């Protein structure tokens, strides 16, 4: 259900201006210029890269069931439209918080750290320091070892402090109770196995996909809660370190950003980097989207920004071609900058 709602919500935002595959690329977090720009243009930051392992057959299967249930009508030439019942249905799914753009799958690193720390502390409490670590990744194991040493686990107070922080931070997160259960059920300890996705799905009467979506959504809210109150959650805040992507720029856009900051013009950067002007413009759009301090007024006047925004509202579209017809004196690049910035 939740997955279907998210899909419809994405289709809704795309406003029939993108192909039927666009939501798939978005959910998988495809690092292509088109997908990245769509995130900004259609305000889809939430859903970017929340399901990196989604398979095409699975996606198509869900799409077909949406069509069968008359939420989605697909026309022969590949365009589609949402039905009225879809618009109702979408509202239900909006309660789930996602922040895919900033976490990009790193929430799994946060949880891996947490799960190994909890497993270690549980065994330490039971006086059993030899056990098979539940997380196999070297970096995670190394990180957790350092964490335990720095926080002096041998003194034996860490269990209680960590418990208080987890309970406190989860209680102040705006997440339903069952979502908290799902996350905690994935933890294991001494003589306590965690629950598998299949078991949780059976217990909660949800599909495995939905359980995993709730899990990801809960981690996103939880980590945000922790990061917003670093002084309250001293331990958890260490776990949340480097989990949020600071400036999520692609490598190439990053280089362009550096040169631009040094004062080079678009044409000069194009020359230096031996890339097409249009590519450098793509980068600038990406920067505008990601860096709130980046002023787009160096490329387009306040007045023109207003004109574009009015056109978006009047014609209810974010299609460049149509907007360009309304404000023909502006370049596509300028229009995209405005769209990237949103409001």
């Amino acid at each position, binding site marked *: 259900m939740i997955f279907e709602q998210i899909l419809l919500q994405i289709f809704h935002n795309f406003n029939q201006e993108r192909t039927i595959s666009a939501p798939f690329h978005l959910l998988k977090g495809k690092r292509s210029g088109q997908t990245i720009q769509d995130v900004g243009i259609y305000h889809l930051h939430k859903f970017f890269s929340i399901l990196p392992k989604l398979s095409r057959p699975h996606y198509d299967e869900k799409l077909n069931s949406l069509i069968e249930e008359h939420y989605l009508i697909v026309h022969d030439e590949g365009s589609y439209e949402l039905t009225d019942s879809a618009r109702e249905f979408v509202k239900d799914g909006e309660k789930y918080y996602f922040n895919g753009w900033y976490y990009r799958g790193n929430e799994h690193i946060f949880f891996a750290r947490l799960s190994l720390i909890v497993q270690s*502390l*549980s065994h330490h*409490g039971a006086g059993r320091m*030899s056990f098979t670590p*539940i997380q196999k990744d070297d970096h995670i194991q190394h990180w957790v070892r350092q964490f335990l040493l720095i926080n002096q686990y041998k003194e034996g107070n860490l269990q*209680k402090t960590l418990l208080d922080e987890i309970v406190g931070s989860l209680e102040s997160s705006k997440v339903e109770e069952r979502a908290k259960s799902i996350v905690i059920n994935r*933890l294991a*300890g001494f*003589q306590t196995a*965690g629950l598998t996705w299949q078991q949780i799905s059976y217990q909660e009467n949800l599909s495995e996909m939905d359980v995993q979506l709730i899990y990801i959504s809960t981690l996103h809210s939880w980590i945000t809660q922790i990061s917003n109150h670093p002084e309250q959650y001293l331990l958890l805040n260490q776990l949340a370190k480097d989990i949020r992507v600071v400036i999520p720029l692609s490598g190439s856009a990053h280089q362009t950003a550096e040169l631009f900051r040094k004062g080079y013009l678009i044409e000069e950067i194009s020359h230096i980097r031996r890339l097409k002007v249009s590519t450098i413009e793509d980068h600038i759009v990406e920067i505008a989207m990601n860096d709130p301090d980046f002023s787009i007024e160096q490329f387009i006047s306040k007045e023109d920004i207003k004109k574009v925004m009015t056109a978006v509202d009047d014609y209810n579209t974010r299609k460049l071609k149509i907007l360009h017809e309304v404000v023909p004196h502006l370049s596509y690049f300028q229009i995209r900058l405005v769209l990237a910035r949103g409001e």
Partner: protein
Amino acid sequence: MELEKVLQHHFGYTSFRPGQKEVIEQIVKGKDVIALLPTGMGKSLCYQLPGYIFNKPVLIISPLLSLMQDQVDQIKQLKEKRVVALNSFLNATQKKVTIQHLHQYRFIFISPEMLLQPQVQQKLNSMELSLIVVDEAHCISQWGFDFRPDYLRIGEVMDKANRPPILALSATATQKVLGDIESYLKMNEPFTFIHTVDRPNIHMGRVLFQNREEKLDWILEHVLETAGPGIIYTQSRSKTESISERLLQMGISTAAYHGGKDTLDRQFIQQQFIDGSLEWIVATNAFGMGVHKQNVRQIIHESIPSNVANYMQEIGRAGRDGKDALAILLFADGDDEFAKFVGIDDFPNEVHVDLYLEYRRRNESPSTMIQNGEISETAYRVLDYWMHQIHPNEVKHQLLTMKTDKIRAVEEVVNLIRTKSCMREKLVHYFGQNLMEKPSDCCECCGLDYHNIIQKRESFEQDETAVSWKKRLETILLGFS
């Protein structure tokens, strides 16, 4: 030297279990040894004890990373600190330091791929070893359970004039596999100790069906009425999911297990199965190795295994505690055709050989075939190995022979199922041994009443009251101190 004294001093036992002393005596004399000992019969003591007689390191090559960690942990619990595992879990610095100090350890566990690395070989060449152990040696043979082409290269590495004795260990191997072990490891007239493969406490059932669909109903009824814990083996991932789903709906605590499950899920399932909270596992053949559970009472094969060695290995997971256990094979007409199809489906063929050559000719890495979806990873590993060993035309021939052999292997399983004499006798013969004695309720052919072997299922009320997340977390963190 009295071996019993060493045993008592380092391990605290007063006597050896069958086979251990014979094997160790030969090793101490410097002979190569192949030992087939069933799981749980103290295989590891066969190399641990010599470790205290020789004052040089013992090198143990082991294919399974999880198993390796288990073994290291076990040795550490015997207060032995000079033990190390050299595998891909180590980071670059750890690896470098470990290799540098390798000669200081008493027991060195190593994975085959690590063994093949130049810096490891260089170090090994510069030091003296007392013994080389090849654990799960059947993996070296295409005909053994769980073939690993990497293992074939061990022989190349170990081929030195003054090498120490080699000890090859396995739980199950046919004559053919034994031959492969001896020749691929280039062993020198090895002493062979074979414990009987027969497991008298495992009783062998068989049920025939007209068509495949009837099996599911049979399973549901059987599982509802008889007691586990048990494992249901089936062929495909999707089947593990669908069967387990049905069992769950009937209130039987069950989990599906296959190679596609995420790593946390797999560990949770193993742990729950061992601690008794799961009654049944529905699994592909990915489940089993390294799972130490003593009281498995039933094994059900929903689809037929691809060869007799796999069958033996899989039913061998029952009754490790020595108490009675039941293994039932379900067979419907057409199952054999399906098993043959699955067996050769994931196997390289002539077209792949040509493709491989084509990539080479274009100076591209042939492994690109995997990314391009032209071959599966498993099939590629087999192909790649042979392309490095023999001429391409011979490879085609070789693959064809292997394919025919695979089909024959399925037919051998079918013969075992279709036999009208004794299934146990047939199974033991297959491993080149003779059956000395038949237990009562021996097998479906000799007469077998399931009720003599397994209990009725007590439908115990599952504790449905889910604990709150706070309570659960508190128990994990504070409950055991």
